[in-house]
């Protein structure tokens, strides 16, 4: 069984989500490009800088998208009390984000949107390109 599917069924079994939500999540999973083999696999960062002090620098980084999925899965093991502390700390920093909202569906949606992500910064000292492939 697919890991994401199992996670959704576990959440349903534990009463964290309703049957309707589970159905929607499973439907979203089936729609997700990972089922069709077109999943985004890597996040690429290319930097081509030419600093007067340090000279020319080239950076080429390729990070597997699976790392993002695994990292988000780590939030699932944070105890409830710690989650509240994390949320409070984020709120204090001006980031109104609830880590309880990180679900497999949200994550897959985010990764799906990353497919279109392309950040290009071009100035006289550096060219930076961030994209997914």
């Amino acid at each position, binding site marked *: 069984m697919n890991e994401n599917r199992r996670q959704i069924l576990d959440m349903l079994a534990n009463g964290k989500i309703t049957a309707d939500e589970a159905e929607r999540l499973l439907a979203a999973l089936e729609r997700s490009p990972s089922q069709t083999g077109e999943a985004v696999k*890597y996040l690429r960062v290319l930097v081509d800088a030419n600093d007067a002090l*340090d*000279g020319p620098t080239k950076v*080429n980084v*390729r990070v597997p998208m699976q*790392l993002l999925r*695994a990292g988000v899965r780590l939030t699932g093991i944070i*105890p409830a009390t710690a989650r509240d502390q994390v949320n409070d700390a984020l709120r204090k920093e001006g980031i109104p984000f609830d880590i309880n909202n990180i679900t497999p569906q949200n994550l897959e949606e985010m990764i799906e949107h990353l497919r279109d992500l392309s950040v290009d910064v071009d100035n006289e000292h550096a060219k930076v390109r961030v994209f997914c492939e």
Partner: protein
Amino acid sequence: MKPEILPPLGATVHVKPAGWRRGIRLWLPLFLVWLLVLPLLILLLPFLLVGALVMGINLWRSLKAINGVLAATRGTHVEVDNRDTKFFIRLH
């Protein structure tokens, strides 16, 4: 065991400082590190279990998630090339 659930088994590292005719090319057998870590983990298991029970963490899920993060690093590639050095690392 599926390859995607295994942590990286090796790393290729190239380092070439400026002025060196030849750089250093290494293949690091990371699987040896995991082989060393495994007995340590088994020794620490009772302590981890108690810690997990006290903190209300599911130990099995935690270990699985940590292994997932390690496994997900496979395929990572970092290359830096500047005036002082050339550096390249890839996790397999």
